[in-house]
């Protein structure tokens, strides 16, 4: 399956909005990341030209911050906590189960662009361990049943129906 086509017009609009700002690069990138879901590599030159920065520099900023992605991600980005507290409470098994259920490796996106699995060092919600984040929502005190529920909620079964 193809990812959604890139809306180049909206990228151009975002660039226009920020191009005369001082220190406009990061706000600009954040807005593209937010609206497109990632920063298409082909847009880097366009961004660089508008801000009069070297393209290599823009790329450097994008690849430095984990908040920016250069590949399309799934509709649901699962961030599994790999912090100490979660580890003690079985965080690794949570990750393994999700990998197995979705048949997907860590850091990868499913071919239908539904799911992306990522890990984070700590979500800062140790009292809920083991935890994960799906898009912007926290899920804590995970159990196999709860995980299946979350995956279903975010459309794991859509493809099967």
């Amino acid at each position, binding site marked *: 399956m193809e990812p959604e086509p890139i809306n180049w017009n909206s990228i151009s609009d975002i660039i226009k909005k920020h191009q005369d700002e001082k220190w406009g690069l990061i706000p600009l990138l954040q807005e593209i990341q937010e609206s497109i879901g990632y920063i298409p*590599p082909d847009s*880097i*030159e366009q961004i660089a*030209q508008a801000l*009069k*920065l*070297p*393209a*290599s*520099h823009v*790329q*450097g900023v994008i*690849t*430095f911050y984990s908040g920016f992605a250069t590949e399309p991600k799934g509709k649901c980005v699962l961030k599994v906590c790999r912090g100490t507290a979660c580890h003690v409470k079985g965080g690794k098994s949570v990750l393994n189960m999700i990998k197995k259920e979705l048949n997907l490796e860590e850091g990868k996106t499913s071919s239908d662009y539904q799911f992306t699995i990522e890990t984070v060092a700590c979500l800062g919600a140790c009292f809920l361990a083991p935890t994960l984040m799906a898009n912007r929502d926290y899920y804590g005190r995970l159990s196999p049943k709860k995980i299946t529920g979350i995956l279903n909620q975010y459309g794991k079964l859509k493809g099967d129906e």
Partner: protein
Amino acid sequence: MENILFNINDQKIICNPGTTILTAATQNGIHIPTLCFHPDLKPYGACRICLVEDKKSGRLMASCVTPAMQEMEILTDTHRVLNHRRNIVRLMMAEHPESCIVCGKGNRCELRKVAAQLGVGEHGLYQMPNYKPYEQINPFITRDLSKCILCGKCIRADHELVAVGAIDYNNRGFRSRPATIHETALENSNCTFCGTCVSLCPTGALAPKYFHHAGTPEREAASICGFCGAGCSLSIGVSGQKIVEVNPSAEQGAVNGATLCVRGHFANDYINSPGRLTHPLIRQKDANSNEALINVSWDVAMETVAARLTEINIKHGPQSLAFIGSSKCSNEENYLFQKIARAVFGTSNVLNGSYASGQMLLSYIEKKTYGTCRIAPLSDLKGAEVIIAVNADADHTVPVAGYHIKRAAKSGSLIVVIDSLRTDLAILAKQWISPLPPLQMEASCADLINVISKIILRSESYDKNFIDSYTDGLERFAECLKALDGNTISQENRIQYQELEKAADSIKGKKIAFVIGPDIMHNPEGIRTVDALLNLGLLTGSIGKKGSGFYIPVSENNLVGALDMGAVPEYLPGRRLISSDDNRKFFENNWQVKLASETGLDMLGFIEGAESGQIKAAYIMGENLIRSLPQPKRVEAALKKIEFIVVQDILNNRLAKQADAILPAACFAEKSGSFTNMEGRIQTFTPVVSPPGEAKADWQILSLLAKKMGYPEQYGTIEKIRQEIRRLVPMYEGLGNHHQDWIKNNDSHNPFTGNECRFVFSCVEPKVNLLPDADYPFTARIGSLRFHLGCGTRTARSERIRLYDNKGEVEISGSDCLKLGLDEGKIIRVKSAYGSIERNFRINLDLPDGLIVIPMAVNSNDVMNLINLEQIRQADQPGAGFCRVRIEKM
């Protein structure tokens, strides 16, 4: 502000506020090891090797980024500091591949040096090499990023010094590496292969590419680059008698600092080319009465040359001889050359090949400004208020000048570019005005500039003081401007009038540095354009002040010097007009001869003279006329008619094949001399290696000739020639006293010296109305590429440049390509009224319609076939820079 007083290792130190601990320590002879520090780059604090300890707080800090504070007590080599440094080096080594034995960096590796100083042999850690693909497809730079220690010198040099921005850090943590955009190979990025990063890399991660074993340099010697007009200081690495590496020298105050360009860095391998001339050759008939060039001794060769030239001189008179000097040879050589021609042979036919490509413009500005613009230090550009660049693609012609302009732009100088081409500078500029290309109907760059002057004049934001004190003719100029209508002119040039207003607004009240392409005079609007710029310069008082004036990025290393030494028909040494009786008298008295009263031939006159049979003999030093002049077939045929041709050159070229005597010469790295660069900086140099075979320095060959001609004065040493220059040429009164010196101005009578002379505003001459030419609708700009210099005689002999395989594609705008129905990847024919060439082409979306760009120097510089030879004489005719063409499908 108060000075900072503090202690390093209990030694009292005083420094200026803001000085870093490292700089203060270095100034006081205290050594602190570094890896990421370089004096020309902003401090970065990446490697942490320069850690020092603050005695009071016990803190460890990187001395390169910590400013010295009052009463600090710094310790540079406590046990703790050393321990930390050792650990940092150990970690670097654990990530470094164990390939020191085969690494070309050898003992010049700074990581190895620091490790040795700290006594780290084995790191004793788990080896975690970070293998990256080895990149070595391009013929200039090999990249082995597994050896990268992330000091960031390459990246900082790329951004801060060269202002290209081809590479930057990519990713982070363990995966972090310098990378191009999309991690492509260097040749697919905007890298210009200037090699600055290679010279700065502390390890073997970046290295020059070699095709066969070259060996590491055994010694390094200083020299001055022999390519373009920048005159960069080089440090040449030599193995045996072979030049194996070229780097920028560490000399303070050099024009190039830590930078070089692709030619200076990588193309000097032409010196080792098998095409070098190594033995004197004389054309003789052999036993079967076939003509051939026979190897002879210097004595026989010079005897023959002297005898034949004397014979022709007696038979046909001195004006049947022509002496063609070279803007690539040194000041001393050009001086001696023109002296021999004028004083020994009595001819006035002294010229050189660079008149059309810059000397004409220099000489025009010289006359109009009374010599007040002879000196234009590039380093002053950094403080320039405004830089206006007109038709100057310095990034390609004189890259180091381009770096200066781009750095000025980054440090806040306002850059206005007037050019129909979107050059690298245009991208960076505050404002880019893109007029209609020259030779197109209605195009007038000159009038655009005049309109800017008009706006400034109207808003009374000109320099009244300067105008009252030093100039004449403003009223007349103002009257001329009244006739110009800004709206019409901007419409005719397809730009908005507001753009001109904006430009005028941003330059008003400021001093301007003008950067002018040396070929600007070669179109019908040329002289008007230069006049317009000179007027704008006077109006704003941009003459005689630091960071203002005229900068001409000339393409040859000693183009200025050849003019100053009088290797031109117009001038005697010291830019003294030959037409003035006083000047001629001066040299007649000093040289004890009568100078010829006829005006000497210019280059076209020489070719015409050869065609008509007037020229019987030519002595050509360091010029490859068949490659560099327009209409090469005509030039070749003309030269065939000359009875006796002496070619004194370093490379066997097409011209040498026609020679009756070949005298092998030494290149810049093999001789002593001095060059004068585009700034007016005179730099001396000494030999780095000896010349190949029996080749001799040009001045030595010339002194042999003088001797054989029975000239009483002997020029056995370079110092002898310099003495004479110092005595007779006030501009060069300090020649040879210092390694670096500047042209002197004290002989010129100019408005600043308080006598009656004043700068005069030029009138606005009526515009030349160009007629449309349906047969040749395109304007071709003959551009140079940074990979080649001028016509490419030397650079084409560089193995690296040859392997880079630049096909010199013609660039065409997208809509022109559509209009003509050209298929990409096919070859096209470009035709002018004088000839045609066949080339690949590519679409350049930045080009305006009607303009195409044809790079010079490739394919034996065949582009010269398109240009009319007649037009190298007249400044205001399409010549070296532009011509009209049509494009045909093949």
